[in-house]
């Protein structure tokens, strides 16, 4: 399991109700359900991935988060997870609002557009950045709203969203983001993981 999922599983721990939005083939859900006894649901737009999840015994609904989240009652999950998907929505703000409504707490991870390789790519090559985390060209990328770790933190401040924990992954190593190291983390981390409410 990738490091990001390990971090998320550690935050969630055991016996919680969890909704994984954009759950893919259900790798994280599977771990949360079978290793940590969580009650997990998923939402995924791709049929073949939903079928994979169902085969694993995971309760996943085929659907688009921008339309389907309204059906879940307020605070019906302990955690709502959005792993590296926020940037792919047409209206990320609306989706995030729904998550904060449904989950008592929400875990959001974002690929960091402020990562130094991304910055250098644009600066020196003058073309849209291609990295391991961002492998698609500008015309076929699903990512419509890229942001940096700093952008996301600023956004939460603006919208009065409380950040309980800010973590980042730098070359597969996990660390806390603080006010003091923000500038540094925003350059050297590939991924930001936030626990918000």
């Amino acid at each position: 399991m990738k490091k990001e999922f390990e971090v998320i599983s550690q935050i969630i721990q055991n016996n919680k109700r969890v909704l994984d939005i954009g759950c893919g083939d259900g790798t994280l859900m599977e771990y949360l359900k079978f290793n940590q006894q969580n009650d997990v649901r998923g939402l995924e737009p791709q049929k073949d991935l939903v079928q994979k999840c169902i085969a694993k015994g995971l309760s996943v609904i085929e659907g688009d988060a921008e339309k389907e989240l309204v059906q879940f009652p307020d605070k019906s999950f302990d955690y709502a997870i959005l792993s590296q998907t926020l940037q792919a929505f047409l209206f990320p703000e609306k989706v995030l609002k729904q998550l904060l409504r449904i989950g008592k707490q929400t875990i959001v991870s974002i690929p960091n557009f402020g990562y130094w390789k991304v910055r250098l790519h644009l600066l020196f090559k003058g073309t849209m950045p291609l990295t391991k985390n961002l492998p698609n060209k500008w015309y076929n990328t699903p990512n419509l709203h890229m942001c940096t770790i700093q952008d996301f933190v600023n956004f939460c401040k603006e919208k009065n969203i409380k950040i309980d924990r800010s973590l980042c992954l730098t070359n597969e190593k996990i660390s806390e983001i603080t006010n003091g190291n923000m500038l540094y983390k925003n350059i050297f981390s590939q991924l930001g993981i936030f626990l918000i409410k």
Partner: protein
Amino acid sequence: MPGLAGLFFCLKQTMNKEVKNIKKLIVNQSLGLDCGKIIKNFPIAYETYGTLNKNKSNAILVFHALSGDQFVTNINPITKQEGWWITAVGPGKAIDTNKYFVICINVLGGCMGSFGPKEINPDTNELFGTTFPVITIRDMVRAQIYLLEYLGIDKLLSITGGSMGGMQVLQFASLYPNKAHSAIPIACSASHSAQNIALNELGRQAIMADPTWNNGNYFKTNLSPDKGLAVARMAAHITYLSKKSLQEKFGRKLQDTGSLKFSFDADFQIESYLRHQGTKFVDRFDANSYLYITRAMDYFDLEKQFNGNLSSAFKNTKSKFCVISFSSDWLYPTIENKEIVMALNACGANVGFVEINSDKGHDSFLLNVPKFLKTLSEFLNSTYKEINNEKRI
């Protein structure tokens, strides 16, 4: 053609005789129907496949649709045709009878041995015909519970069915929230739409317009409204297919000679196909049953049973749901299946949902649609595994 009519008559006589030899449970308790009438000492006909395991944890209750019966798979002993869900049920199939014990019960109002308009009314010693009480999906489901009691099955591994079978799944899950580990409603709806009521009414009117229907007393004349029933079936059959599948299969292809006959014979292959579907159906189905069962479907409104809140129907459910719809099904479209999913989510129930891509319309659930059968098989398998793991702990 008196010869042909005579042949039909003979065939029906043998059918009736054979119906008497099928598995039946006579329910000696009384059951209060939704219409207010009380029935007792009534038969429910059923069939089972596979073997019930020692702790009775591998039973799957399959609910049949409008034109189905208890003979889910193998060769139907009455009609000598393949069982209606032979694609999904059998050894090594999605609902694997080597592993699971499959039960199916002919619905109340049906014509394959269960209490229906073709049965004899003990008060009059005549067939019920249209004096049979109007039954509902809820009545059908409540009648089936007696067989589970008789078989000593406390909790089913799963309940499943498509179309009207799916409605029974929903009703069962709502009535008995702790009697099934999992529930798989397929291509159905929690309340029958205006369009579907309209289509059923078309079928009923076709039967009633047949003079031999005789207000449902056709058994007195030894005739039956075969033409009316065939037309009803033809109309219904169109609704089970998609425009695309009809176009691909038949297009404007002509029958026989390859040129128009300038008459009202079946020029087009689609006409002859539908006529064939119609005549095939009257050999095995009772016209009055068709009226009663379509009525039960029309009356089905689970939302209304719970004062307009579908979610309350499932608020106590312990079952894990897997709702399945088909992309080209316009009779029970994905949106209606999704309403069930939304209601389940609103009450925090455990639900998965997938729409299967298929061009084959509503009938997809009866046909060989590999992705559907795979999903069905894998969901059941995962439920089965989970239950057995639970028991080990």
